[in-house]
Each structure stands twice: as C-alpha cells, then as structure tokens.
C-alpha cells in the first residue's frame, strides 16, 4: 500500500478516496459519447460532411469547379466559399468560440485577431479547411467528391520559422491585419514589453552573478482520443447540435451570433467527452457553421467528424525564450528578464494568452518579491498548424526557462537550488519564504531522496558501465484559485431533493474526464450531510442540454472541481429551510423551531418530536424540493499554492537513451476535493508531460511545408511500457476563500516535468540540454558522440 494523503480537515465525503461515479458506466462501455449517438443505425437518414483541405502551406483558390463532383452518386450537396451563405459570415477567432464565460462576438477576447474565415479561399497551412464542403451518403463518397473538385490554386511562398517570418522579405500570412507577420499589440495581451517592473538594468548592476540561457519548447498537441465531431439538425427555425465540445452555452452563442438565429432556437447537447486537454479551446470551429448550413439546405441531419489526421488541428505554442537572471552572492535575485518569440502558426487564436497573459499572471503570483522583472514577447504567424490552448497553457514554456535559470544560478553560487527557490519566489500577499513553496519542495526532496542522490553534475557513479543517473526538479505557482475565476461570472447549481430523500444534482458542466462530476457528488453529499445520505443517493445529471440545463460551468482550469461545490455549500441552508417549511405543519411547529440531522427532523430546543425526514415528506406534498442557486466566485485575493515535480533519470551514454526512473509530483491543493481523482490527474498529467519531454513532436518537411506525422504511429504518445513509477503527493498548506478554499490542479501537473527532467539530465551527464523533446540523438550530440 502506498501512503494516503492526510486531509487538514477530516470530512465525510470531500477529500476521500473512492471510485469515480461514472466508473461502471465507462468501464462497461455503456457511457455514451457524442459520436456514439451519431452511428448510422441510430440516425438512418444521416449525411456525412467532409471539407476540402489545402495540400499547400500557403495558397489561394483562384476558382473551383464542382460540376464533376456534384454528379457523383451519393453526393447530396456541395457548399463553396463563393456562395453568399458562406461569404457573408463574419471573420472569427478563438477569443470567443470557446470561453471560460459565455461571450458574444462583440465581447470576444482577441478582437484584433479576427483572422479566420469560415471556408475562405486563402489557405495558410497544410490541412487548412478551405473552399468547399461536401455532404454525401457516406464519408468515402464525400472524400471522393473532394478529389473530383477541380481547384485552380495560386501557390504562394511560405515560411515555417518564426524568425524568418519576421524578416521584411517574408511572405505575409494575413495582409488584412497589416504588413508584418508579427502579431500586433492588443488590449488583452498588452504591449510587446508587457511586464516592466522596477529597472532590470539596475538589477543587473546590483547583481554579483549574471546568467543567460535559451530554451525551446515545441508544438505538442493534445491528442484527445474522442475525435471532435458534431451532428447538426436544422428543422424549421430550430438548430439542434450534438457535440463533444467542452462547453455548451458558448457553442449555442456561437451558432446564434454567426448564423443569426435566436438563442432559444439553438439547442446544444453534450454528453460525456473523451478527453479535452485544451483541444476544444481553439478558433478551429467553423466546421460547426458549415455543417449547420448543409443541414439547413439538405433538410437532413449532417455529421462532421475529424479523422485522426484531422485531429491535429491545434496545440501548444513553439516558444523560444531567452532569459537573464542576476543575483547577489547570498542567492537574492535582483533581476529576471525574458524575451520570447512564439510561433503561433497560421492563426492567432489564444496564442497571446500563452505568450503574454500567462507569464504576466505568473509574475504577479510568483515573482512578486523580485524587484526588477521584464518580459518582452512576440507572437509570429507562420505556415504551420495553429497553436492555441493546451493543458498548462503558456506556463509549460515559461517553466522551461525559469527552472533553467534557477538551477544554473544555484550551481554558479554553490547554493542548493531548493534554497534559491524558497529565498526568492512567492506571491505578493505573503512574506517570504512562501509556506506553500517551502513545504512542496521539502516533501518533494524527501520523496526523491534529493540529498542522497544529487551529486556534482556528471560525477555520479556509473551504472552498468555506461549509464549515469541524476535528479532534478522544477517548481511553479499553481493557478485557478477562486479569485482567478471571477471572469466566469456566476456559477449555477440546481439541487432537487426527492420525497425519498434521494437527490438529483444538476451541476451543469460537460464531463471531459477530469472527475469534476465525482467532486460535485462529494461536495453535494457534504453540503447535504444533514439528510443522512451518501454519494450513492445522489444522481448527477451527466448530459448538458441547453434547452433544460442552467448555464454550464465551462470545463476548463480544473476549477469546476470546486466552484460548483462552493455553490452547493451556499445552497444547503436554503435546501434545509425549504424542507423544514414543508414538514413543519405536520409537527405543529414553525420551521424555525426545527432542525434536521442525519435524516431526522427534531425540535431544536429539546431534541423532541424526532421523526424521519423521509417519513414526513411522504405525508406532505410529494413535489420534490428544488433549490437553484447562482454564486459569484469570491474576489478575495488569497494568493496561490505551489506545485513541483522531482525527477530521477538514467542516461545511457552509449545510446543516448533517457530513461525516467521516477517522478514525484507534488501539488498543494488548498483542499483536496476528491483524493483518487486528484491523484489520477497528477499521475495522468505525466503522460502528456513526459511525451512532450521525450517523444512527442510534430515534424514538417521543411522543403514542402507538409507535416509528416499526423498519426499515432509516428507521433509517439507514451504507453504503459514507457511510464516510470510516479509518486503523487497531495498537500493542503495554502488555503483559498470559501468553504473549501481549493485550487484547480489538473493543468499544472504537466508544467514542471519537462524542466525537472532536463535538470536531472544535467545532473546525470554534466552537459546542458535546453530544448525538448530530448531524443537519443540530442543526448549523443550533447555528449559529443556524434560524428
């Protein structure tokens, strides 16, 4: 048995180890995902849509001839970019097609970057949706029809490298936005120099030691197993959409505003979703709209779904950071400055969130005690797959450089990097050292045997004659505390107590696998513990349906795990009052004279009149008692907890193979809402994190601009055989606002691992590798073993 975590406050439900509420439904294969509702035998009159995709990294369509394709047996409709229904649609971007809150077109986040056309004629990467979409009786027929469309392409020069794309001679991707590929400054991200605290020049002058480093993160992708799809029906004036997007009300808004249909005539249904990881946080949502237009014209339900190849449509930003750190001999950091260039690919989407917004947030909560901090960053368009949101957005790339600077500085000063971290990093609402950071690092160091295993770089003992071992770590502030979720607006929950004291819980959100559903049930059982019920007595409504569900709490930031439970805690008093109002007349008492505990009603004064609530409810009106609450997240600036990953690696100096032996993943959670689920996030995040560090990478043919590995044979995701032993450690040191004071943890589980592994590699071989993925040839090159 591994050690279980010890909660700060012992509760009956919240914070416990238990099976997921959807465990049996999912393990038995009975859970229905959107694609399962769209199979031919369930929707006999279904049509399949396939969209034309650019074979060139940069090209324009001069003209299209669909006459031959239209003749193909089984082709029902072809929609092209020249038709008014398409050409008249507004340009769009990811600044509103997804959202933590529901946004209108006018209130979208990145207004300056409305760079996406729905089915335009200007292709900007290989795979860009462009020109025409076919509806046919089968996907094979639709694909054949696409091949029979005659396209007159104007092939344009292309650019893949962001530095080359900044040159004045580079082909311009979005001439409509200006005469450069560098994204302009905007209201949300700010200026190119978007953080400038103190004076970094003075900080450098004050420093006894100055260190520079450069790190590069590549463009990994999310790779949810459940390929994105939608089935759209447009009957009379009403649109119904079944989809595996991670938000429902925002999707409804998207349809309504883009297709000019009233909100109440758009119904969006989302059952279980097979993984998100940021996949749906992208501007790549025009497919919803052309699928709807085809459904309208054909009068039949139309399905659009990505193939595995097409599922490579957005990912993490390829970012190169140059960083400078300066410090006193005693390890006091006097200055931190960064200059970054991010390859955003063909469309801006949320890339400036990664390049500017996230680093600015980190500055506020982690660099608050460093007097001089400067960030300069630029996003650059290139003819590659667009980057957008991926689990740990922006933080992963930043951590790769920060962890490098701290580790390097520590070596320079002969101080333990753990001490450098504790001496300098923390949020502005707490004095140094930050209690959360100290504890996260203490426990992590203990679990990895830091003191025993760490040695001078490259000077550890040889294992099996050719292998070298090393340890490393990296740390980061967590994010998604309650005060950071204010922009969501109100969080809605509806609790219905049935006469038999069972509960129907409508905590609206799309369940993407995060386990927020089980958190919700535990939160509900905790809040309604006076009913004497367990989680099994609570039915959680698993399908989001905008016709009947309250506004969904968008499944991002892993914040749904506690935001809805906070709302339930607030609702429980009202539930009790309503129940007492119902049963009080039966006991010849006023509601105020009574109370409920463990499922029994009694007189407060002397404990008398004790009767079971269920028995009383069956004597009263049999209407269920329903309480709907809305709660604004608390604004109290409680700061943030810290997270860290510690790694032990073994490097084969003959083959260059990196074997990660062990990872210790430490999260201060504030409050653990659901222990098994939280550990699953900590362990599970390492599949993405280690994949990004060692094996995952999109490879382009530089000569043609064609991506070469949009499949799972050549884009290598870790399997069970690749994963090391992982030690998940949950802590409750920091505390946020509200009843529980929790913080989202899922995203951050991927953030520190790449740097922890790179620092461990350095400890093992004594040579720095600062770019990921680290493939065997990278290690051999670092060791000077390549010819």
């Amino acid at each position, binding site marked *: 048995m591994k050690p279980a975590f010890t909660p700060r406050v012992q509760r009956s439900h919240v914070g416990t180890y238990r099976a997921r509420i959807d465990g049996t439904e999912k393990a038995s294969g009975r859970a229905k995902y959107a694609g399962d509702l769209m199979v031919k*035998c369930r929707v006999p009159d279904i049509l399949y849509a396939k969209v034309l995709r650019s074979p060139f990294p940069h090209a324009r369509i001069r003209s299209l001839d669909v006459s031959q394709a239209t003749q193909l047996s089984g082709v029902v409709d072809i929609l092209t970019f020249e038709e008014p229904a398409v050409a008249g649609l507004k340009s769009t971007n990811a600044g509103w097609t997804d959202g933590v809150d529901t946004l209108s077109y006018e209130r979208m986040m990145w207004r300056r970057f409305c760079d996406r056309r729905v089915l335009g004629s200007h292709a900007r990467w290989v795979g860009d949706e462009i020109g025409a979409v076919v509806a046919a009786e089968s996907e094979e027929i639709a694909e054949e029809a696409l091949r029979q469309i005659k396209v007159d392409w104007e092939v344009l020069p292309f650019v893949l490298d962001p530095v080359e794309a900044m040159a004045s001679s580079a082909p311009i991707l979005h001439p409509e936005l200006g005469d450069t590929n560098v994204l302009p400054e905007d209201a949300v991200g700010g200026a190119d120099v978007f953080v400038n605290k103190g004076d970094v020049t003075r900080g450098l002058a004050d420093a006894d030691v100055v260190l520079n480093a450069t790190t590069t993160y590549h463009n990994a992708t999310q790779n949810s197993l459940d390929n994105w799809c939608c089935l759209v029906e447009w009957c009379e004036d009403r649109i119904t959409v079944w989809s595996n997007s991670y938000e429902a009300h925002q999707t409804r808004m998207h349809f309504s505003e883009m297709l000019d249909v009233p909100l109440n005539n758009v119904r969006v249904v989302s059952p279980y979703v097979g993984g998100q990881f940021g996949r749906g946080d992208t501007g790549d949502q025009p497919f919803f709209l052309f699928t709807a237009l085809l459904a309208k014209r054909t009068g039949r339900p139309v399905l659009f779904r990505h193939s595995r190849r097409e599922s490579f449509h957005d990912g993490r930003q390829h970012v190169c950071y140059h960083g400078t750190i300066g410090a006193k001999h005693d390890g006091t950091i006097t200055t931190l400055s960064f200059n970054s260039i991010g390859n955003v690919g063909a469309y801006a989407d949320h890339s400036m969130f990664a390049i500017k917004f996230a680093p600015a947030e980190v500055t506020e909560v982690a660099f608050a005690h460093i007097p001089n901090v400067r960030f300069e960053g630029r996003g650059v368009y290139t003819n590659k797959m667009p980057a957008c949101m991926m689990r740990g957005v922006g933080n992963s790339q930043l951590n790769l450089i920060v962890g490098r600077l701290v580790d390097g500085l520590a070596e320079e000063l002969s101080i333990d990097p753990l001490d450098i971290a504790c001496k300098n990093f923390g949020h502005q609402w707490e004095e140094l050292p930050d209690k959360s950071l100290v504890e996260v690092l203490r426990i992590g160091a203990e679990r990895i045997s830091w003191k025993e295993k760490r040695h001078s770089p490259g000077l550890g003992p040889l294992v099996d004659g050719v292998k070298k071992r090393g340890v490393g770590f990296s740390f980061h502030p967590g994010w998604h505390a309650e005060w950071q979720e204010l922009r969501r607006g109100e969080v809605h929950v509806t609790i219905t107590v049935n006469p038999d004291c069972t509960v129907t819980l409508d905590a609206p959100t799309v369940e993407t696998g995060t386990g927020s559903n089980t958190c919700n049930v535990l939160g509900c059982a905790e809040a309604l513990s006076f009913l004497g019920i367990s989680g099994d007595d609570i039915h959680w409504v698993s399908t989001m349906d905008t016709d009947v569900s309250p506004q969904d709490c968008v499944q991002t930031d892993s914040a749904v795990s506690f935001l809805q439970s906070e709302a339930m805690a607030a609702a429980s008093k009202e539930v009790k009052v309503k129940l007492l109002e119902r049963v009080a007349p039966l006991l010849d008492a006023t509601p105020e004279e009574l109370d409920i505990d463990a499922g029994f009603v009694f007189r407060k004064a002397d404990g008398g009149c004790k009767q079971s609530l269920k028995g009383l409810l069956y004597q009263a009106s049999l209407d269920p008692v329903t309480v709907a609450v809305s709660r604004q997240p608390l604004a109290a600036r409680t700061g943030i907890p810290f997270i860290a990953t510690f790694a032990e690696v073994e490097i084969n100096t003959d083959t260059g193979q990196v074997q990660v032996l062990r990872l210790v993943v430490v999260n201060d959670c504030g409050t653990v809402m659901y222990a098994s689920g939280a550990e699953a996030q900590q362990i599970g995040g390492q599949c993405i994190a280690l994949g990004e560090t060692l094996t995952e990478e999109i490879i382009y043919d530089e000569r043609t601009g064609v991506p070469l590995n949009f499949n799972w044979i050549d884009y290598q995701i870790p*399997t069970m055989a690749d994963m090391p032993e992982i030690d998940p450690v949950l802590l409750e040191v920091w505390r946020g606002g509200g009843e529980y004071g929790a913080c989202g943890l899922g995203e951050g589980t991927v953030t520190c691992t790449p740097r922890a592994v790179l620092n461990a590699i350095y400890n093992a071989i004594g040579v720095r590798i600062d770019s990921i993925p680290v493939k065997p040839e990278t290690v051999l090159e670092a060791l000077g073993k390549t010819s």
Partner: protein
Amino acid sequence: MAPSATSRNTIIRPPELPIIINGRSYRPECVPPTTTLASLLREHFGLTGVKIPCDQGACGACTVIMDGKAVLSCMVLAVEAYGHQILTIEGLPSDDCVVEAFAAQSEPGYGTALQCGFCTPGFVMTARALLDRVPSPAVSEIKEALSGNICRCGCYAGIVQAVRHASELIAKASAS
C-alpha cells in the same frame, strides 16, 4: 492504383457463414468490402463500446476478442470476421470482474483506472483476453499485454492496479 470510391462502395454478397457477435448469429448484408469490423460493429449493430480514435491500429481502443484473442477491430475487415466468434465489451457479463475492477480502482497512490473513459473498453477487452490466458499475470506481463493501448488521460498506474485486482477476484472466485 487505389480503388475508386465507387468500387470501394460496391456491395458484395456476404460470405455464407454467419458472424457470431456476443453469442448471437448474424448475416449482415450490404457490407462494402472495405468496411472494417470496428465500423460494422458500431454503425450497423450500434455496439458503441467499440471506439475508433485512430482507425490505424495504433491505440487499441477498438479492441474486441475474436475467437478468444484480442484483436484491433479497425484492422480487421468485416468480411474477415464471418465465420468467427466476436466478443465486444457489450457481451461481457454485467458482473465481469475486469469491468468491476476498472470501475472500482481508487487505491491510494495509483489514481483511478479511467478518467474520460474513451480508451477504457479497449483496455478492458485487452485485459480480459490476457486474464483468460494468464489468470495471475506478473506486472511485467500486464504492461507488455497492455502497451498497445493508449490512455491519453494517463491512468496507466491505476489500470495496472485494476488488472491486478481483477486477477485477485478471479483467484478468489476459483478458490470458492
């Protein structure tokens, strides 16, 4: 030369032998020769526990048991399945110990055995076939047998525990 869509959609007469799915015998007609077993099971029979994330044999989510052996149903043509016994996750008994163990995993330190659940039927069927063959597998055998399956939520540690627990349930059942 690649066949045209027209030839790919040509309907051929199904073989004489029936296909036996979860114990029942079928002779589906109108099956184009390029239809995969995975597609047939989902689209024709509505057996949607079979998932098709990659359609190229890379992820294991479409795993079914064919004549007692775990196969990737996206790599088997429907016509190849005629005359064979196919077991999908829908054909497992409702109290199947592998299903129960995957659903129940919550042992501290290992996380759950599933999160989004999309890969789970494939893991369950691969594990079922392993345990039918090797009722008490070593951890290394579990890892080898399941290393063709991808879980992007990364629940590998929980899955190993679930298979171990299922193995214990089998041992307990055979002892009693």
